């Protein structure tokens, strides 16, 4: 069973659709993370089978526009919007804010140069009218923690000024999406929010 199976349980959203937006700059590891979160057994449809193959082959290509991943667990139907992080596609994000019920924001913690860009995009997100006044949970993954020059999750949250987010539940955890490390912790946190 994949991680989202558990999520289904604790979100208490039985037989209900949960929309999760996966945001972050290009190359931060969004698609890799989603592939890890997907159920690994073969009880799924053809489409997911393809993705599974992709993940196994470690052949993840930059997302164009966005891709929607749907998968059902015993009790829940998940829709994850895997948005492309490339500059020219980032203006697509806001069109999905309304439907989003949770946000996963992925940061490449080894890309110090673009930490300001990640912060800028996060600030734009937080100030968007469709997000600003909602208590929408945000899960941050300080991804690529395995890389030598990666910043710690504490440092990342400092640089992104996460302490200023007062009106939304948020959580940050360091992760290595390739190995699947740290993802469980993040999902466990989401479980506690609902």
């Amino acid at each position: 069973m994949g991680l989202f199976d558990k999520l289904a349980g604790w979100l208490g959203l039985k037989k209900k659709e949960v929309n999760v937006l996966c945001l972050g700059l290009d190359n931060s590891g969004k698609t890799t993370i989603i592939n890890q979160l997907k159920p690994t057994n073969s009880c799924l449809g053809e489409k997911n089978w393809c993705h599974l193959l992709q993940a196994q082959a470690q052949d993840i290509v930059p997302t164009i526009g966005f891709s929607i991943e749907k998968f059902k667990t015993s009790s829940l139907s998940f829709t994850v919007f895997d948005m492309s992080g490339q500059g020219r596609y980032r203006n697509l994000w806001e069109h999905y804010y309304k439907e989003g019920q949770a946000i996963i924001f992925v940061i490449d913690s080894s890309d110090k140069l673009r930490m300001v860009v990640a912060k800028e995009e996060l600030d734009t997100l937080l100030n968007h009218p469709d997000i600003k006044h909602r208590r929408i949970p945000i899960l941050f993954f300080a991804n690529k923690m395995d890389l030598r020059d990666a910043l710690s999750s504490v440092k990342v949250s400092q640089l992104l000024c996460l302490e200023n987010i007062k009106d939304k539940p948020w959580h940050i955890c360091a992760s290595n999406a390739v190995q699947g490390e740290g993802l469980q912790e993040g999902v466990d946190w989401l479980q506690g929010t609902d």
Partner: protein
Amino acid sequence: MASVHMEMKDSAVSSSKWLDAHYDPVANLYTFSSCIALADLHGDGENKLVVGDLGTGASNMKLKVYRGTGLLSENTLLDLPTGLVSFLMDQHEPCTPAIAVASGPFIYIYKNLRPYFKFTLPTLEVNPLEQDVWSQAREDMIDPMTLKEMLEGIRDKADIPLSVRSLRFLMLEPQDMEAYVNLHKQQPIRRQTVITCIGTLKKNMADDDAVSCLVIGTESQEVYILDPEAFTILAKMSLPSVPTLMDVTGQFDVEFRITIACRNGNIYILRRDSPRPKYCIELSSHPVGLVRMGKNVVVGCAQETLHGYTQKGKKLWTTYLPAPVTTMAVLDLPTRGFQAVLVGLANCEVHVYRDKNLISTIKTPDLVTSICFGRYGREDGTLIMTTKGGGLIVKILKRTAVFDDKDSAPGPPIAQSIRLNVPKKTKLYVDQTMRERENAVAMHRAFQMDLSRMRLAAARAYVKALESSLTPMSASLTEPLKMNAVVQGLGPSFKLTLNIQNTAACRPVMNLAISFLYDENLYSMRTAFFKIPLLVPGLNYPIDTFVECLSDKGISDIIKVFVLREGKSAPLLTAHINMPVSEGLALN
């Protein structure tokens, strides 16, 4: 470093167009825009910053590569770099660009950051006389002192300059000469020039990943184009002066344009199939920066000006800058279809110009010596600057930044520079102009004559008026008087007030009388003659009288007033009162 990062973030203005990604004031990076490039050196989609570091003084010259905020590698350079470019030598997989560093007469080519090839400029012709004296020295036929004298003689009159070896020799102290001669006399003399600037030119395709030739300018006033793989000379062109700045566009096999700023203050434009410059732009001061903007060339000059020229050398505009230019670069964002010119200024500002309009100003903590804009890491709109103090500044253009095309520089409004739609000159206008041009002297004379006549007529009339005291000012010295008259009423009854003043300093006037002259069919006056009392100097005497208009035909006339002195027939002064038309109905 991290603390600096945080500080900069705090001070950043939220409305700014730029994000402060990185600032290291002690990066120990000393370079110019000609020695800085961005390239995907490892073919991983992440651009690295490649810098030819001039070091401090004559040491510490290095080829440095940055990845993100950190230094990735360093290679020692043997000599000061004069230019650095990244280019594709071939299209073999993996398609990673090579780095060419020009220094002295050499170009060092690096592939995968390892030395790969060294190109040496062809040697120049050696003066036969110089060759001669050195061969005499080799045979020990002349001593160092004679060698020195002969070389000095050659230096002073030869058209082919001396080699570096001879020039060095001439600088030596006498005691060092012998050893120097013995050390060098066996080797052949070579005369070499050095590279002053370097650029790249696509070979036969315009794509981003097309193979490029190197284009080099030399101190010997020549331009060479080198084959990308074999480094043979494909073309050679001559210039009237030493090239200093260069911009290259086009493709070698198709058509190209090399725009070169030279040390004589001119800009030359070279084209394919012309060994000499095709166009020349003569600047009023020395060029210090040169970039291409689409089809135009933008030049920064030493006199704090920025000029725009067409590619044929026609001047389009000039902008005046607040400080001298330190360096220039082009801001090109093809994904957003945006191009502008970045100008580093000596007042610690970087200005962004679109044509002649200043669209953004960036303040820098130190004087900027080099600017490079492009894709760095994974960010397309990255601005990299190095400073005089060796600092490195990286800013990222916000995704949402928009530039108004409006000029934000203080100065005259745009309306002032809009051309008015002046109509074409008519035939009449042209004829008149011709006539004026041809008969200018006669016209002037006629005018002067008429002017003199008019003055004479005016003077005569004035004298006549004075003589007959027809003015309301008395001209006599003994009775200086002033009078004015006011008419009140709508008619048919009018009140006439005469204000009389004695303008003498202290002498009173007496024995004066006033008399009126008018058309008796039109007006009637109760008293048309009365005496006036003694006039004390300086006081105003209002004298009222009443006039009755007798006509109801809506006509009016003049009433003349005379101030008279007893026993004299000529009046002291005269006033004409223009009576208003009677608007009321005549009584009865």
